[in-house]
């Protein structure tokens, strides 16, 4: 047994002696934070996103490949507010990595730094898969991205002080471009104000709040519960009485429920990128908001 232990230790040491990668390893739970880290980090960071815009971030499993990646991370950025409750705690305990544990500078929970919407007054599972901390999909409001960027700038400088100057200057440049873009989007999205919208899941609440749209229903009967025929039938009645102007589903949702309602109610439907990478145009954070607004404007015209 001793020999096995020695062998294990020797193998471990041999691998540890490999030259450390030059770039700071950033592990993000969702692609928007990966895109943001890339904006601020440039070539000083190597970014890995655990999920893509084609995946429901609630439902991910702690796959071996994710453990392998989080094991070498220097900084972790996740939305938080229990969005990743099913898998992030497992990744953290399996990682053997003290740098990104809760309470360390390497652990950044983005939703802690913005004002959250839909904080439930009553917390009960009968209400669906609700998040006691509020809606976690904070990235669909560009003003939240700016807030998180400011926090991320500080964190990057803290965990990688050698490149602090680079992070500060890149952040300054990004935030300047971002504020310009927000001003532009504010104008572009003006026609969306007050437009009644049906969502598949409450994935775009922050976007709706920002643009002043008006969510009238969700295709899910309760958060996290797949659409049911009876609920869709009710929605159809509701739409006949008070039609919404657009039905949206995200890049990871099945379009079936939206199609069902759209065909019968004659209300246009549109797929929105859930995050960066959700559509061809949503290549980065700028493209993400450009495309969301563009698609909605196209649908409600």
């Amino acid at each position, binding site marked *: *047994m001793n020999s*096995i*232990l020695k062998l*294990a230790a020797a*193998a*471990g040491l041999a*691998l*540890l002696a*490999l030259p450390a990668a030059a770039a700071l390893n950033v592990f993000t739970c969702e692609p928007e934070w990966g895109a943001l880290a890339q904006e601020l980090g440039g070539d000083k960071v190597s970014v890995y996103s655990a*999920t*893509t815009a*084609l*995946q*429901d971030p609630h*439902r*991910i*499993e*702690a*796959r*071996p*490949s994710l*453990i*392998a*990646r989080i*094991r*070498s991370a220097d900084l972790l950025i996740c939305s938080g507010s*229990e969005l990743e*409750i*099913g*898998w992030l*705690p*497992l990744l*953290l*305990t*399996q*990682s*053997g*990595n*003290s*740098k990104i*544990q*809760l*309470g*360390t500078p390497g652990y950044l929970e983005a939703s802690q730094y913005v*004002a*959250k*919407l839909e*904080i439930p007054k009553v917390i009960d*599972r009968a209400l*669906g*898969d609700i998040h*006691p*901390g*509020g809606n976690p999909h904070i990235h669909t409001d560009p003003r939240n991205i700016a807030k998180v960027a400011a926090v991320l700038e500080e964190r990057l400088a803290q965990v990688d002080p050698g490149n602090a100057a680079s992070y500060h200057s890149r952040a300054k440049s990004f935030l300047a471009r971002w504020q310009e873009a927000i001003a532009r989007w504010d104008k572009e999205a003006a026609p969306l104000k007050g437009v009644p919208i049906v969502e598949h899941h409450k994935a775009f609440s922050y976007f709706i709040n920002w643009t002043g749209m008006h969510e009238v229903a969700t295709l899910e009967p309760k958060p*996290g*519960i*797949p659409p049911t025929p009876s609920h869709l039938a009710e929605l159809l009645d509701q739409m006949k009485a008070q039609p919404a102007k657009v039905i949206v589903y995200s890049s*990871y949702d*099945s379009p079936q429920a939206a199609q069902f309602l759209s065909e019968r109610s004659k209300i246009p439907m549109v797929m929105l990128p859930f995050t960066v990478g959700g559509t061809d145009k949503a290549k980065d954070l700028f493209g993400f908001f450009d495309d969301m607004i563009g698609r909605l404007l196209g649908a409600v015209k």
Partner: protein
Amino acid sequence: MFEKAILALAVAAALSLPHEAQAQTQDELRDLKEQVKQLDRRVSDAEQAAVQASSRPASENALNPAVSLILNGIYGNLSQDPANFRINGFAPTGGEVAPPGRGLSLGESELAIASNIDHYFRGTGIFSVSSDNQIAVEEAYIQTLALSNGFTIKAGRFFSSVGYQNQVHAHAWDFTDAPLANKVFLGNQLSDDGIQLKWVAPTPLYFDIGIEVGRGRNFPAGPQGGRDKNGFGSSNFFTTLGGDLGTGTAWQTSLSYLTTSPQDRTYEDVDSTGTPVTNSFSGTSKLWAFGGILKWAPNFNPTEKNLKLQGEYFQRRENGNLAFDPAVGGTQTGGYASTQSGWYLQGVYQFIPMWRVGYRYDRLSAGTINIGLVDSGALTAADFPILSAYNPTRQTGMVDWSPSEFSRVRLQVAQDKSRSDATDNQVFLQYIVSLGAHGAHKF
């Protein structure tokens, strides 16, 4: 809109300058609009801040650990009496290997409590209450958070890293019961009091190696409680390799080697005349477990459709002495050597949200069993009926419905040929629910 109107009025009132408001110059109007806008922003910011502040728990129990309770109940219809369940060809393990009982019964209720202890450790306690009101500590361990470079140490009682299925809690199994191989080689599910050191390699391909040493509390190490011995009674060496293939398939293989030294590991049998006998084994027991899992979901998004294939192969070699101790007559002891194996393969497919179907095939091979007392002619093979050569098999099919992540209803049918002389046709209808903290999506 309404709020803004009120705000406009409030601003007008606050300014309390009606004569100025009446002044219709463009500049003043613009100023007023701007002020309203700013106030509006400040009010909404303040409102959100207030909501957030009020949502922050301020009580002493805000630091309570995550608590979850698993409840399950089962209806069983079996053509054979589960009370005389046995798996021929293999020494009984003393574990809870029998299928669930006939009729309605409560399954195991499980209370799990977990939390970070401080910035160094995380603690987990999982306690089960069986339907006959026996309380057991299933798992109770601490785990390091502060070690770096991929190292984790776990100490306490935990499910051993022997293969894949052994580390999964019963409520998360894809079938109602364990594979036959897990029943005969691990006494259903092996948990030991011990310590585990694991190292995860710094490579994009997942690779870990680890070692566990334990008390040897349960089968295959020996009788309940372990040996009266300093040091350890069991050791397990394991390694796992895993990764992704493309954008929808994840895989994992694992290999482990469990070594134990059973002392007076007893089991009940009858001799050739039908007289009850207590046999006991002392020696060494070495178990190889090799397993693989393949999971597929479109774009790794399992919400709509997903497929899971899982299979494991076990091989065990035991060497030592077998003592034959009839109720009447003296004890006789002779050599004992066996090489036995078993495997299962199962697939579970979620074809639409909430609904899954699954199939599992189990096969065991009694292999070679050399009993010294039989070879020497002192006794005959008929004196060890349970160890008679036989290759048990079982086929299982199931369909389950999970209306949410927290509840599941399952129907399972099985044809179990564990007994050499009878086929057991089984039907189980089961519910499993979880209350409280959100469960983990283990791979």
